[in-house]
């Protein structure tokens, strides 16, 4: 799984302080999420688009990522234009399309994509361990950080285990179909994954205890704010302000 495929790189965005990136992404996403004008959302989009340019990651790769999220947004288009009350612009029998619904769906689409792009360019370009460190520098509760970190670290292992089990099923002639046997087999697979993950978590905790773990993680890397960090912070605050002011 290429969970960190954008994280390796040497661009100016990659080298930013993870704390700046986290805070900027948080501030910017909040402002975009709260904004209710299409013009404002489009202007906000300039910021992540420029950031994509700076990261040096090709658009093709980024768009491929965005397709997945947009497939969920497609659902919104299936319902909102028909259900939000307003001026009817088109009708087919009992189905009527309202102008307000279309605008609303468009707004949600733009906003989601702007936020998504911001997260990809700022957080996607940061190795997860750096994010974890940044979070702990920023005083986020340790427990939350541990949960986040272990989720990430073991998603690989659990995915590998899943693939291994799936292969084991296939070599014994398993072919998924729409029948009870398939459902039961998949249920066993998921059940086995849960049991194995639990088992593994116990072993990992034991291994950590053997190395003196007392419930606290120590931080090895420390970060320094550089000029580019202040520049990014300033840009994002300025952009956020513009986006806030536009609808007024």
């Amino acid at each position, binding site marked *: 799984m290429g969970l960190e495929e954008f994280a390796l790189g040497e661009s100016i965005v990659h080298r930013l302080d993870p704390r700046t990136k986290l805070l900027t992404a948080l501030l910017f996403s909040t402002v975009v999420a709260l904004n209710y004008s299409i013009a404002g959302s489009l202007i906000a989009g300039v910021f992540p688009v420029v950031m994509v340019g700076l990261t040096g990651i090709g658009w093709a790769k980024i768009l491929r990522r965005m397709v997945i999220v947009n497939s969920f947004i497609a659902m919104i288009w299936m319902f909102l234009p028909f259900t939000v009350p307003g001026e009817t612009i088109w009708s087919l029998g009992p189905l009527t399309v309202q102008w307000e619904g279309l605008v609303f769906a468009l707004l949600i689409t733009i906003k989601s994509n702007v936020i998504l792009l911001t997260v990809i360019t700022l957080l996607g370009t940061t*190795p*997860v*361990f750096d994010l974890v460190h940044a979070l702990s520098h920023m005083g986020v509760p340790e427990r939350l950080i541990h949960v986040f970190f*272990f989720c990430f*670290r073991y998603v*690989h*292992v659990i995915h590998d285990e899943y693939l291994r089990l799936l292969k084991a099923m296939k070599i014994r002639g398993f072919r998924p179909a729409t029948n009870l046997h398939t459902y039961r087999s998949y249920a066993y697979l998921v059940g086995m994954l849960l049991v194995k993950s639990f088992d*593994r978590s116990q*072993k*990992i905790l*034991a*291994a*950590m*205890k*053997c*190395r*003196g*773990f*007392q419930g606290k993680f*120590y*931080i*090895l*890397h*420390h970060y320094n704010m550089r000029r580019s960090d202040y520049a990014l912070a300033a840009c994002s605050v300025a952009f956020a302000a513009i986006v806030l002011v536009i609808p007024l």
Partner: protein
Amino acid sequence: MIRLEGVSFSYGARRVLDHVDLALDKGDRVGLVGQNGSGKTTLCHIVMGLVKPDSGQVRVLGKMRTVEDDFAEIRGPVGFLFQDSDDQLFCPTVLEDVAFGPLNQGKSPDQAKQIVRQTLARLNLGGFEERLTYQLSGGEKRMVALATVLAMEPQVLLLDEPTSGLDEDTTERLVEVLTASDLTYLVVSHDTDFVARTCERVMELQGGKIREAS
């Protein structure tokens, strides 16, 4: 340094350890052989305090160990290499993982990095610092796992099936590292050749009892 007296342990109705006595003194290099499921791993876990015996006494580094706090003291001075290195390595990079133990021992980040460099160099793993642990090969994982244990400067080492899944070259390196060290250690294995090459005394665990192997 490690003394088990009359230790018993059962999984349900199956008794895997039956009044076992075991002594490991300074400088000892002991091999413990036995079939799968004979309780070798359980025995290690009891020494480390990961599993509580049903009865018997566990004496490690001169003190009786009964509760979790007693065992917390020995983790470090007694190092334990797990059978499955995937259980042992959990940080993204090798540097972070090897530094984990020293940091827990209260070393500063700079000291920890220094220890990591020395330990990796000692195991011929120089330059591995930034490698991702889950992308290492099986043999590399085992050597890095050993580094994570050695970085804590243990006086005694317990190795649980250290050669399982290793190729000849890595096994060879493991033999070199162990025989060249001045560590006291207990090797749990059914690789009789490896045990013969690294240990001076061999014990056998069978039917819940330990006896000197011939």
